[in-house]
């Protein structure tokens, strides 16, 4: 789940945005909520910074460029400059409020240790999984707090690069 507070460049307008993947079995399908509105949206990336969005049956090509303080989005023939404002949940600092909902293996390797259990809460940068690859141990973590929804690997597993290791969710108690 990604919760964001976005604002236009002048800061006059802000939008509370929530983009959540529908389920792991439906890649590219999201629920988009902003204000009162909630819709199903499909995103088909055509590269790291562009793709197609399908919303209410309309398919729109989009292009993005990420700068230090803002994102420029080209869609519907216009460029919109959008900035990230304070955390929508009001708890993360420094604007780092983007949440990924899965932890994946950044390289092929062996799961050496699992440092958390299902249902357990964790803080930013807490070790979640330790993976061994090419005789080196790497500690995997995420930059935000959350709770372990499910663990999809076990110690000793040989995992491919990109394999899903842990599913994460927002920690409601902290929210």
């Amino acid at each position, binding site marked *: 789940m990604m919760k964001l507070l976005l604002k236009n460049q002048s800061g006059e307008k802000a939008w509370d945005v929530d983009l959540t993947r529908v389920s792991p079995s439906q890649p590219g399908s999201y629920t988009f909520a902003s204000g009162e509105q909630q819709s199903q949206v499909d995103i088909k990336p055509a590269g790291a910074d562009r793709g197609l969005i399908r919303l209410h049956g309309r398919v729109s090509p989009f292009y993005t460029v990420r700068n230090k303080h803002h994102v420029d989005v080209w869609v519907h023939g216009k460029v919109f400059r959008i900035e990230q404002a304070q955390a929508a949940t009001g708890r993360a600092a420094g604007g780092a409020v983007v949440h990924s909902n899965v932890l994946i293996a950044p390289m092929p390797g062996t799961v050496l240790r699992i440092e958390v259990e299902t249902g357990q809460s964790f803080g930013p940068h807490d070790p979640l999984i330790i993976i061994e690859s090419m005789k080196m141990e790497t500690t995997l973590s*995420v930059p935000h707090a959350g709770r372990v929804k499910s663990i999809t690997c076990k110690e000793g597993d040989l995992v491919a690069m990109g394999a899903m290791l842990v599913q994460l969710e927002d920690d409601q108690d902290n929210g």
Partner: protein
Amino acid sequence: MGIPPFGMFSKVLIANRGEIAVRIAQTLREMGIGSVAVYSTPDSGALHVASADEAYPLEGESAGDTYLRGDKIIEIAVSHGVEAIHPGYGFLSENAEFAQACADAGLTFIGPTPEVIRQMGDKIVAKKVLADAGVPMLPGGSANDASGLKKHASRIGYPAIIKAAAGGGGRGMRIVKKAADLKQAIEAAQREAGAAFADSRVFIEKYIEKARHIEFQIFGDSHGNVVHMFERECSIQRRHQKIIEESPSPGLDPALRKRMGESAVLAAKTLGYSNAGTVEFMLDANGDHYFLEVNTRLQVEHPVTEMTLGQDLVRLQVCVANGAKLPFGQDDLQPRGHAIECRIYAEDARNGFTPSIGMIAHHAAPLGGHGVRVDSGISRGSLVTVHYDAMLAKLVVWAADRPAAVDSMKSALERYAVLGVTTNIEFLRAVVGHSAFAAGHLHTGFLDEHCSALAHSDEEPPPEALIAAAWALAKSQVDRSLGERVTQAVTSPWQEAGPWRSC
């Protein structure tokens, strides 16, 4: 086109950069002629370098150190077996000394003779020569000092316009509304002209409000044949620089077109004009036209003529420079349909059209469709620097009639994505979408009258923009957190794609 007397050139150097250098290289390739590019240090990765068969550096950054260095360019041409030089527009294209230096080095300059370039480069001389021949002129005059100019001003009345004798690109130009402002305007124009052209001479003429800018393409060969290739209307201007051009003009009827075409041919014949040129006129509300200037080069907006006549003007230039006769007479030229060009600039229309610099992150030109042409000098990763003109590309459409061409341009602009620098695409959309534009009621003050408010609209982003922004922010956030925590496999495609990559 007939067999040229001495055989076609085997290799041509393009003394330019950006879209025009790319466009010239394409025609040379189609003609089977080798192309040679030159490039400044910041342009070493530019598209025009990749478009040519060979490329040689002009070390330096500023235009003065690179694309304006005729001596360096001729040296490169001579030492690499080049036979002719195409100057494009801007830079050395209207420099009579350079054209002469090419001839002295045994190279063919693809353009008119140095004498004609020199004559027409001095606007005071040009007006005298062509007025004597009977080309219609605005009332006005030149003088060596402010008091002489003041006398002319009191004779012709206000508003008046002061222009630089060596002028071009809107520099050294001042509109004067009343006598009290004259002295200051003369001084400002002289200063600006002196700085831009090392020639501070100015002249004054009657200023026509709500005039149309109509220019005629002319073409001559070295055998004394001259034709006009019909008009282009270039009334949509900001800071005296054109941004939208079209052909035919919605303001001309056949009789007026014929009269203006005759004036253009009269100018060309008087000058013994060879190669491509443009005779510019002002057209007032009464349907009277007045000479402005002759541009002794290929114009930026030449594609609209190419599309309505089905001709490649660069190919004609090369053939005529090579000694061929024009392959058509005046009566053979019959324009078809309607063409419009929009100049895509890296500039901020919401902030006084100030230039925008940066790296092109995306350049997705509108692809496909009938009659859409994009002449571009950029690609993803291109640098837009402070050193050169901010024009990135030209979007040209052709359709059977003007309403269809306007619709096609609207649609093409809507599909044209550029990110990395701020562009004028949204502004162009607003202009082309304006009812006064659709009605064809064009004049050089059009943007001031209709579009100053358009430049300040701040539209609410559609949900798709918020979704795309959230997607991009989430991806880069995840990419960064992986990058911080994982010291291995930093080039993993998963970091590139992000953990919630979905297809």
